[in-house]
């Protein structure tokens, strides 16, 4: 939170977020749809943006914050250039996705939910992308990598980085 406070949103971003709220009639019932659009616009939902949305919808900022932190899809930290998600659905878990996760953490030296200092990679877990036939699965950006073993990880990260 402390970090988010220091940042200032660009004027055009503020205008665009306000436009999203207007488009949805500034209705509190549309909060989740508004947050989806705001996040796809800006990549994440910093505190300042939540305050703008709260003001537009005429609801307490705590309510917006409550919703943002309730749902795992919403994030308050910027993602890396290449967001990595390790599937920890049951099918992937029993085929060893936890070991993949350990290996990625070790190589990038970050924990789940963090971004590398150079902003290149961020690491998250997700539950089932539905590609259980390819388990264990890791997604980097839009691309799905299936049937991975820990020893494949280094090469893939280097490939993506280049």
């Amino acid at each position, binding site marked *: 939170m402390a970090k988010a406070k220091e940042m200032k949103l660009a004027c055009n971003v503020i205008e665009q977020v306000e436009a999203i709220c207007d488009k949805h009639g500034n*209705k*509190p*019932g*549309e*909060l*989740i*749809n508004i*947050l*989806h659009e705001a996040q796809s616009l800006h990549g994440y939902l910093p505190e300042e943006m939540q305050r703008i949305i709260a003001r537009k919808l005429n609801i307490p900022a705590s309510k917006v914050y*409550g*919703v943002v932190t*309730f*749902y*795992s*899809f*919403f994030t308050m930290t910027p993602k890396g250039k290449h967001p990595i998600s390790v599937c*920890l*659905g*049951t*099918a992937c*878990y*029993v*085929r060893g996705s936890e*070991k993949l996760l*350990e290996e990625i953490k*070790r190589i990038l030296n970050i924990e789940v939910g963090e971004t590398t200092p150079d902003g290149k990679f961020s690491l998250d877990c*997700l*539950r*089932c*992308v*539905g*590609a*259980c*036939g*390819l*388990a264990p*699965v890791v997604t980097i950006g839009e691309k*799905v990598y*299936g049937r991975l*073993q*820990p*020893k494949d990880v280094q090469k893939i990260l280097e490939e993506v980085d280049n």
Partner: protein
Amino acid sequence: MKTLNFEDLIQFRKKAQADLNVRELSYAAVSEKSCGLAVGTEHIELLCCGGTGCKASSSAKIVENLKAAIEANGIAGKVDVIVTGCFGFCEKGPIVKVMPDNTFYTQVKPEDADEIVKEHVIGGRRVERLLYVDPKTQEHVSDSKHMDFYRKQKRVALRNCGFIDPENIAEYIARDGYAALSNALQNQTPEEVIDIIKKAGLRGRGGAGFPTGMKWGFARNYQAEHKYVVCNADEGDPGAFMDRSIMEGDPHSVIEAMALCGYCIGANEGLIYIRAEYPLAVHRLKIAIEQARQYGMLGKRIMGSEFDFDIEIRYGAGAFVCGEETALIHSMEGKRGEPTLKPPFPAESGYMGYPTNVNNVETLANVPIILTKGADWFASIGTEKSKGTKVFALAGKINNVGLIEVPMGTTLREIIYDIGGGVKNGKKFKAVQTGGPSGGCLTEKHLDIPIDYESLGAAGSMMGSGGMIVMDEDDCMVSVAKFYLEFTVGESCGKCTPCRIGNKRMLEILTRITEGKGTMDDIEHLKSLAATIKDTALCGLGQTSPNPVLSTIDNFYDEYVEHVKQHTCRAKQCKALLTYTVNPDKCKGCGACARNCPADAIMGDVRKPHVINPFKCIRCGMCQSRCRFDAIQIF
């Protein structure tokens, strides 16, 4: 285009059916003859799976290459490439099916497209190397009907998945689509439709198994200015993907069923609550809704009748608890997805306080076919109390991972060994987990029970949404219980104390046990905590969350005791209980382990056996994955 009325729909269907004949006929009578333009076939269709799983294996590129090859060979007018929904056999994906000879190509790569076109389509010779090989006979099988994976399946909810182009409403209409809606609007009262659903014995496929007809009846009985039909497409159970596949492969069946439900309960507005993690399903639903509007299957005065109905999509944002209907409704209202106490049930006071009927995707997909084929037909499938079929997502340590649909009453043995082809790599079967985080682990002794809502419940598990994960001797059941509890703790909304705090305490105990620090009292504490949580939690998520723990204690008590008393994990999964050593007889002294050890715990001279320092070893397993001589042993 002009919207269709009842009469137009019949005419439109006739024309659409003629267009679909290549596929329908090949399904009816499989031709064993080789097939291709060379032997006089006039029209060939290449069906390519466009589900999420196959798309991840570049099926879009395959489609592109097939089209290019068709163009390059100058046969564009005679051959069509059609992107369908999921065929179900994900293990062997991406799949390309050639019609009318019904050839089933497996694990196709983009570079195979040219050969399929030149050899099969033009030359009439099957590409043998891409055919499925029967693991028992080692023979090539060219047609899905003769594969064990498909033989015991009965496709009702998945009837159109992998058969029609989900982005083309005409193909759905050709398969008797919107016939049930048209008939209901013309000839049946809402009560009559509800009666048919009741008689058919359809029960909710989302997990709890509540009778669908009865649910519709309740919602009909409440009078209000607005009423809502909600489709619960928030498939959160990790390892289950049937709802996604239905929406990707046959979205119109869900739309038609929602309109039928609206007609029955007196609602004019429908909402689909779908996970934002399913972009392809969202895309296909949007196209389907738009097409349904254009053709007059949604909107004002549907097919010229007095009935108005339209559908909007609402997005979830990643919260498992939103699968619970009251939580789902709060989420649609833009709030935190916290459940509330029932009653009042959504049928009385749901979305925005109005009467609301919530059904899950698979349940809805069954509705149109029940109405076209009749209640008796549906009720003739299945067991006494569980009618029809159930779709399962078969995954884990099993040879044939995929999406399957079987009549209720099929045994676990038939599913795992006949359809699933047995446990992967010849390992020993240990357990099968059904019902996801709310279900339990079943063992060898449960393999012959006929699967239905009651029998799974009696065995300590539940139907759930239909995830079915097979585990082998390498899976530690204490870790599996811990895995599910980590999930529940992470997904608990925090509203009620038993779930928020009770599950956390259970997770702490399980963590202690997996680290070899547990006591026998801990196991008893787990049991009593579990009983309290089951009795006192507010919603379904909390009440069922102890199931994975209880069922593993029941069925694998010895493993818990081993962790506690002997500090060993027989599956070698619990890191804290493992000791890594080098087998000096196998070690060649290559140094690969020492170079890659992140903890600098391995020492030794070149070409001489190395040793692992147990005090430095962090048990990451890196040495084992790098050793080419199988010299790293784990005790």
